[in-house]
């Protein structure tokens, strides 16, 4: 599906949030088959440098994907995302994802996931395909 190319791009992506509780993380482990104990085993995680379980990186990244879908009503074909996982998210943290328009041509958003305390967990950009960009 294509977004009307005459539509001006929104300045901000819709913000979405998620509570990364242990049950949600267990579900994400089931979904991806990623049962790394750093995510799901508090005893193991206590002995690591993180000191406690951390959420899967793409569990947080998917919040950005959700923000994009909610903003445009669909995931535009040809959209690209490039991110760095800059800080782990402790299981139980509430996170939010969003983005700010950096350039209308090409349609580029600075995107992020951050904790309630404002600590960035993911940073990067998403670039809309040519037919999605504002004139």
């Amino acid at each position, binding site marked *: 599906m294509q977004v009307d190319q005459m539509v001006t791009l929104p300045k901000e992506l819709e913000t979405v949030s998620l509570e990364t509780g242990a049950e949600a993380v267990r579900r994400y482990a089931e979904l991806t*088959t990623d049962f790394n104990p750093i995510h799901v085993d508090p005893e193991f995680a206590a002995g690591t440098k993180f000191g406690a379980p951390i959420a899967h990186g793409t569990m947080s990244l*998917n919040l950005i*994907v959700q923000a994009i879908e909610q903003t445009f009503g669909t995931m535009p074909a*040809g*959209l*690209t995302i*490039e*991110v760095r996982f800059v800080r782990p998210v402790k299981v139980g943290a509430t996170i939010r994802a969003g983005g700010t328009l950096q350039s209308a041509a090409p349609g580029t958003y600075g995107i992020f996931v951050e904790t309630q305390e404002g600590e960035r967990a993911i940073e990067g950009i998403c670039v809309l395909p040519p037919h999605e960009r504002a004139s």
Partner: protein
Amino acid sequence: MTSAPAGDVWVFDDFHPGARLGDVSIPLDADRMTHWAAIYGKARTTNHVPAGMLVAAMMEAYLTVVRPRPPGNIHANQKLAFGGTAKPGDRLEAEVRCLNKVLRNERRWITLDVRLRNGAQDVLRGEITTIWAR
């Protein structure tokens, strides 16, 4: 088809840029939809698979093909290119390749390319860059 590591787990030396590591088939079945909805909420319509489920399928493909892995790997960077959509019940075909490997500052960087197809359509291409533990 999946490759296998030379030893007990996949280590840096097992990766060869350009090599096809394996293929896996991932159904977007009711169990996966239920897990997704429990985490992120229900999809907008019953005929819609959220794009994030494609990202989850990309990870499942990588983790299914490249195993066992050493503990301590760090998912550092991620690129995604969306190309299409899927419906509940569709079956995705994934191909996992080694794109690159670099030893830099005593860190072992591995980049894998996961290509997800839904029928003839490329729905997602993902580049997973990981700092490999061994």
